[in-house]
């Protein structure tokens, strides 16, 4: 019956915690955090955001980096834009609110599907990166990136490209670099790598793009062929797959995942979390988890992070302008 109580407790604590508001009183570096810190996830349980946050909290507890309770709460909605708006509008200046985000934040904003972007909140760190990979089915006539892009440039309609709506940008940039019109690409929207794999295997689509981990099992088993990894450096997991830059297309957009707090989060809290997270990603348990999940830890804070976010956001806006805001 222990499990029953565990579940019930999880539900009840979730209810109780989201009920109370969060801006706690003045604090200082020494005794922070005094109470529980709310670790929120703007997506469903089991999503990429959720698993990142749960792994992180697990590491922070296991390595005894943070003693305070860190209840995790899911607030799914509009590709995390619902929770982002809550953080900006309702949690201003709170020191006990931490959440997870990614490139989606920037694409949502560029598509006008969210009012807020990374500069409306307090970005604490970039945790990890995931690179995009372009794949075809193993029996496809396309053997390399060039043949795909040439075909798209020549007759966009004849090459349906499977991509979740957030993963369309890097492909649009590739087509643009190849001299094609990005707004004419025949994108077919899928909800992630599983659906895309099914569509590639059934012959519905010839080409697809998504984060590397989504296709890895089928690439390794030879059912799918990886044509390129979008970026500069080859990946450890896919050493034989050439990068887009190697093949002469100067596109390096990658997905990132990071941690943020509400706007105006007090300095002592920001400093605390920067330190704690740095310790976390350098621990063995994080490294083990990252390896399991195929995460490339690319931890970054401060000015370095700000420069990165700014240039990435610029890339997103440029790409969006080219695709005609698809």
């Amino acid at each position, binding site marked *: 019956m222990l*499990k*029953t109580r565990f*579940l019930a407790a*999880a*539900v009840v604590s*979730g*209810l109780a915690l*989201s009920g109370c508001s969060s801006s706690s009183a003045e604090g200082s570096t020494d005794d922070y955090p005094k109470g529980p810190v709310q670790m929120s996830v703007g997506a*469903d*349980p*089991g999503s990429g955001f*959720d*698993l990142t946050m*749960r792994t992180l*909290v*697990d590491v922070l507890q296991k390595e005894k980096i943070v003693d305070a309770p860190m209840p995790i*709460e*899911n*607030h*799914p*909605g*509009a590709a995390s*834009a*619902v929770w982002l*708006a809550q953080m900006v509008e309702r949690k201003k200046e709170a020191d006990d609110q931490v959440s997870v985000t990614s490139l989606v934040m920037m694409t949502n904003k560029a*598509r006008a*599907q*969210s009012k807020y972007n990374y500069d409306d909140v307090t970005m604490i760190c970039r945790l990890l990166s995931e690179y995009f990979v372009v794949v075809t089915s193993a029996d496809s006539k396309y053997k390399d990136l060039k043949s795909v892009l040439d075909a798209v440039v020549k007759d966009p*309609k*004849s090459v*349906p490209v499977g991509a979740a*709506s957030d993963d369309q940008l890097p492909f649009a940039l590739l087509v643009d670099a190849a001299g094609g019109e990005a707004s004419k690409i*025949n*994108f*077919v*929207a899928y909800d*992630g790598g*599983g*659906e895309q*794999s*099914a*569509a590639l*295997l*059934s*012959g*519905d*689509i010839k080409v697809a793009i998504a984060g590397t*981990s989504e296709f*890895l*099992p*089928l690439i*390794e*088993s030879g*059912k799918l062929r990886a044509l390129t990894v979008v970026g500069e450096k080859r990946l450890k997991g896919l050493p034989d797959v050439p990068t887009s830059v190697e093949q002469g297309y100067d596109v390096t957009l990658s997905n990132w995942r990071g941690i943020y707090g509400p706007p105006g989060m007090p300095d002592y809290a920001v400093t605390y979390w920067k330190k704690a997270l740095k310790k976390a990603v350098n621990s063995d348990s994080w490294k083990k988890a990252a390896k*399991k*999940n*195929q995460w490339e830890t690319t931890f970054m804070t401060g000015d370095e992070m700000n420069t990165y976010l700014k240039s990435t956001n610029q890339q997103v806006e440029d790409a969006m302008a080219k695709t005609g805001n*698809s």
Partner: protein
Amino acid sequence: MDALNSLLSGLAGAVTPTNLLFVFVGVLIGTIVGVLPGLGPITAIALLIPLSFGLDPAAGLILLCGVYYGAMYGGSITSILIRTPGEVASAVTALEGYEMAKRGHAGPALATSAVGSFIGGSLAVLGLVFLSPVLVDVSTSFGAPEYAVLLVGALALTTSLMSGSRLKALISVLFGMCVGLVGMDPQDSVARWTFGSIQLSDGIDIALLAMALFAIPEAIRNLAVGERHPSHALAIQRAWMNKRDLRRSSGPYARGTLIGFVAGVMPGLGPTLGSFASYSVERTLGRRARDERRAEFGHGAIEGVAGPETANNAGVGGAMVPMLALAIPGSATTALLLFVFQMYGLQPGPQLFQTDGDLVWTIVASMLIGNAMLLVLNLPMVRLFVKLLKVPPPLLYSGVIAFVMLGAYALTFSFFSLMLLLVIGLMGYFLQENGFPLTPAILAAVLLPLLELNLRRALRISAGDWTTFIDRPISLTLLVLIVIGVAVPMLLQLRRRFARPD
């Protein structure tokens, strides 16, 4: 016989005391989250992932898979007793199951759903073991055009669910379609019917809709009547199936297993559609029958419980086929399980059975054991659950409302879900009181978005060419079958009219 040997060695691996304990804990948690509305297997598995970090892969996966199929058992209990589906796949069980309970047959309904779940769940595991190599190719043989055609067929089948006024049923379908359209459109992310509200941009959760249209109207009706004591029929409940119940259930068990398993194998469909399809089939057959079934459908026919409950459990085994063999998840729950496999460093895909055969067979074997445990766990509970109906209606139905509101809140942890539940629930109440059937609405809300998704994908891929639906052999075959299915009964009716000109 290779598969049989592997399965037996898997069984040997699964019957260690620790593994048996994890099977038991898994199915127990599964049953409980299945009972709680709004809290489905996905949430439970996500909550248990940190815990399973510390377990060895076999124990962890046995536990989490147990939660998945255990939830399919639990979902039907509240569907039958208080018309509150614990999870979406059990929504359709409420149709006949709750009617049975109202007539004092809650016991047989619960029993047939437990037995059907066991049969469907176990046979699907055997299907997974012995047919997997063949089915892998089947699961990728359907593309967007085939799914689109199949869903048109499914929508046509919903007409068989209509009883009473055709016009009211049609209005109900349109209402469901409107609800299904709310949110971002799946291809171009254009907001529809959201009234500028960001919370509506994901659409309306089917679990919430099922609670709002089934549980809330029924609870309000019972409270509005002001009856202080349970009605006579409710108070005297038969606790077990008799021979006739069992005989009537056997056909649905067989058909439900087949339908549910196939729906599970197809990544674009999943267990929910399997249980809906099974209900449609049973109801269509019931209508053709010349005995008491004809009149009973809609008023508590046991076939309408046995079929769908068998199908949704068979769907679990089916959904494991593309997940294990191709790393393609057919539903959100299998997507999460896929992630758990990867977390343990196991890579589902064509080579999984070679590289980690022992482990996979142990897990598969544990599913057989787990299904047996669920049967043993659930059957004695029937007597206990039936007692719930002796609770005076004011208490029981106030409890239902509180229970459902908790469930709706747990979906997004936002006040907005609660408001949505109440608004749609009130609409549901007025529709129900005025004789509108609500099942067609839920079916339409499930089917329409899927139809739109596949139709638009198919047309994008063909660059707008509609002949894609008749160019492809499978799609053409399905189209012909649908046309025959719709036309033949109409022609028969016409002939009957001409033959008897009175």
